[in-house]
């Protein structure tokens, strides 16, 4: 049973790799033909300008509209970025074929070996987003990963697919500090778990407390530290835990407007990644800390800054915040003009949050 599943899984990974390679090859072949026939190669990139980012209610996330920009090698102003993009496709092709991973920074430096100039890393990062937009695939599919800062802990068996570790398995509750969510983990097969829920928390401190208090066992959960705004690899993993293992996802953040938005991004993506799908967990639930909790639990608070308030007003214009708990909590924040951190529960004792608050919220989540 286990072997057959693992075989099936590795087949799936191979399939994905094949897709990526074929996509890259077809783009390359088109440009090759153009050049060979004396035509200036060109292709269109979905426009990522603000005006072309629209909210798709069905998908429950931001997506790019129909506008696209033509990038042509004939336009001398675009020649450089055209070449950069070609190089990136070429580089991604090698990475994917050789199953090597690299970071955004790696990409920036690797370019220099091919005499492709990037002014700075932000320029190369931008070209990476271009490639994502054209291919509608996240950079992780091309083996390009950001720096890691999020981690995971809980009873989950995985099987690596990266070169050198293929077939090797690991249980993610073996190490109390948790496991960094990096390329090997994101690409690993999720074999099985005893957990019944995924709890994503915003902060490392709380993650450690949850492990200490054995939340994984007490609530049969997998604990994930998003390290602030969840990186794409973490969001990919969350989606897979939800989709592949059928686990519900709840999110616990600071009681402020940024915390609320961290939850929203996990649920429905960010405008920055509007060109990508498969990064959202639409069923994920934000369980706290809500603005109403601040009053309800009489939490110590900090006054909201001007930028907090401005952020509130901005989000109120976002269609995703049009109704329900999302709008209600924003309104309360604006009313009380105060915010509270997760650590605020320590006022009632260090384990208050795990003993009292969390169980209530897990129970509540079922009804959300």
């Amino acid at each position, binding site marked *: 049973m286990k072997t057959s599943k693992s075989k099936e899984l590795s087949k799936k990974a191979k399939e994905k790799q094949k897709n990526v390679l074929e996509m890259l*090859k077809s783009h390359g072949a088109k440009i090759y033909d153009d050049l060979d026939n004396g035509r200036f190669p060109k292709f269109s990139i979905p426009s990522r300008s603000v005006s072309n980012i629209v909210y798709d209610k069905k998908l429950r996330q931001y997506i790019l509209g129909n506008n696209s920009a033509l990038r042509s090698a*004939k336009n*001398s102003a675009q020649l450089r970025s055209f*070449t950069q993009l*070609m190089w990136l496709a070429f580089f991604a092709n090698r990475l994917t074929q050789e199953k090597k991973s690299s970071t955004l920074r790696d990409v920036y430096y690797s370019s220099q070996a091919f005499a*492709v100039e990037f002014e700075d890393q932000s320029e190369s990062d931008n070209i990476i987003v271009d490639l994502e937009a054209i291919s509608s695939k996240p950079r992780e599919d091309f083996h390009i990963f950001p720096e890691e800062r999020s981690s995971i802990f809980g009873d989950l068996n995985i099987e690596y697919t990266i070169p050198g570790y293929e077939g090797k398995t690991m249980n993610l509750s073996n190490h109390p500090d948790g496991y960094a969510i990096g390329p090997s983990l994101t690409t690993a097969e999720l074999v099985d778990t005893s957990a019944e829920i995924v709890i994503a928390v915003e902060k490392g401190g709380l993650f450690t407390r949850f492990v200490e208090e054995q939340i994984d066992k007490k609530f049969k959960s997998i604990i994930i530290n998003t390290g602030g705004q969840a990186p794409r690899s973490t969001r990919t993993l969350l989606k897979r835990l939800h989709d592949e293992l059928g686990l519900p996802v709840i999110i616990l953040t600071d009681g402020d407007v940024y915390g609320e938005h961290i939850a929203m991004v996990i649920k429905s993506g960010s405008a920055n990644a509007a060109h990508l799908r498969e990064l959202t967990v639409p069923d994920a639930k934000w369980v706290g800390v809500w603005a109403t909790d601040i009053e309800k639990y009489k939490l110590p608070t900090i006054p909201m800054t001007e930028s907090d308030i401005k952020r509130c007003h901005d989000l109120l214009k976002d269609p995703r915040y049009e109704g329900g708990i999302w709008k209600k909590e924003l309104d309360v924040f604006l009313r009380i003009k105060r915010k509270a951190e997760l650590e605020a529960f320590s006022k009632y004792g260090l384990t208050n949050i795990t003993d009292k608050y969390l169980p209530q919220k897990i129970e509540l989540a079922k009804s959300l």
Partner: protein
Amino acid sequence: MSSIKEKFNQISPSEFFYSNRDLAGFSNPTRSLYTAVRELVENALDACDQKGILPDVRLIIKAVDPEKPDPKPYILTVKDNGPGIDSKYVPLAFGTILYGSKFGLKQARGMFGLGATMAILYGQITTNKPVIVKSSTDGKIQDEFEILLDIQKNKPIIVKHKTKEISKQGLSVSICLEGDYSKAGTKIRDYVYETSLITPYATITFDDPKGEKFHHPRFVKDIPPPPTIIRPHPHGIDVERIRRMIVESLFEIPNIDDAMIEKVRKDLGLSKKNLSFTGIMEKARKKWKTLPRQVRVVISLMSFLKMDFEKLNKIRIEDIDVPHKKLFYWDFGDSQSKSVDMDPESLYYNQLTHTVQGEPLTTFLTKRFQRVGPTTAIKFAEFAKFKPEKRVGTMTNQELVHLSNSLQKFEDFMAPDSSCLAPLGAEPLEKGIKKFFNPDFTAVVQRPASAYSGFPFIIEMGIAYGGEIKSGGPHVYRFANRIPLLYDEGSDVVLKVVNDADWGRYKVKGEPPFVIVSHICSTRIPYKTAGKENVADRPEIERELRLALQLLSRKLAAYMSKRGQAEMAKKRSNLYAKYIPMIAEFCTELAGKKKEPNYKKILEEVNPIESKKTVEEEKPIENK
């Protein structure tokens, strides 16, 4: 008082220059060597110019003892193929200060031929060697002189004189002088180089003391038209000059010698006959209209003296005292001075007073100045509140000052005649600039003649950009009357004008490869110092320089924007040449192919016409 005056008078011009030699550019061995070179080369070029000979000038500097450290004695020789100097005049020309042939009012490099003698004087002071002058005016016989200067007496001492047969006309001057070539070398080489730029019709060769040869062959075969000598312009003179002109204009009382008496007899038709006094007067009255002025004056004198030819032979006229109406003469027979009264009613009286009092003002103006006609002269007299028939010889000092001031102020005189100027011409100047700097762009302008203080001048200017010109410009080459100006550029009017220009406006940025050649031609260049190295900022000259520079700058700006476009096109083409092969390389691997696509077609399509070509196509327009 009188003894001091006497002492002062005893200083000869030679002595004066000896004690003030730094005025003329002989302040130290470095500067002196350079100035000596300049003076001799310029004399040679001037001599050829005057006779319309294409100059071949050879400059040789040799160390007397090459082993000695600088400063040390050098032998400086300048040879030309000019007209030479008549052997009679050689000692005077090279052995006295203030002797020269260049006193007329026209453009020449040097004014009075003074510099060469100064160089000789300086050489003699520092090395005690004579100047060696070899001259041939006919290309057959050459006179060779060795001359020393007697500084106190301002007189030449001929040490040696010999003649020999040769086959070339021309002049060679050789002086031995203390100099410092290690320091002056750069300037001298620059001088020769720049002289050949502004004298494109001359071949100039320079053999330097280190054994290097600099040969600048002529690249223009025509000498620019020579200047003519002209009268002064009323705006260009002062009281002293007027005084001297009046003295020149006064009719001299003829010296009544045998020759003069013979002439009077002949003109009266009395060569053979001896008539009495009354007979002579009778004859003269009949023939009066046909008699020349000198004869009339003699007759008039005789009328008062009441003498026949025989008596006239025995006296000498001393003075004509117009205010007292007396005529003074010396009687050889009695050996004493005598006088007779003159009758103011007599017609002969008028004849004499006119002679003594000079021309009427209007005649003086029309005859002695340029661009003044009778109408203007009368208008001027009105303006200055002089009677038009006012005799210039009768003017008091005060009146002379008033006359001089009025001449300066009167605005209806026509602009000075510029026929006395010899600009190089736009075409030779452009040729020179192209040859010397090999630029991408050249523009040249010759401004119409203008004048400052009555001295006509013409500005010629050229501008060159790119090509082989070094960056760090504008590099300014200053010339005045075909002389390169190398020292003291900081205070020069040309530099002032160039520095005032806002080059950014003309699309010239950073440290451009950029040359400006400026040539001021005038009968008198307003040098700031006697060293003749920097031109003073006269408003009229400054204005003309500005106009010339603006015109050229606009042409340069037009060129620069075209060049900018061409450079953009080239840059673009370079972009394609750089990036398309890279795209080809990457897509080849992406597409899984082995051979790179044939992208040459694309590159050919985007490769624009070479930028150099575009520029050359534009050139004829720019230089109109």
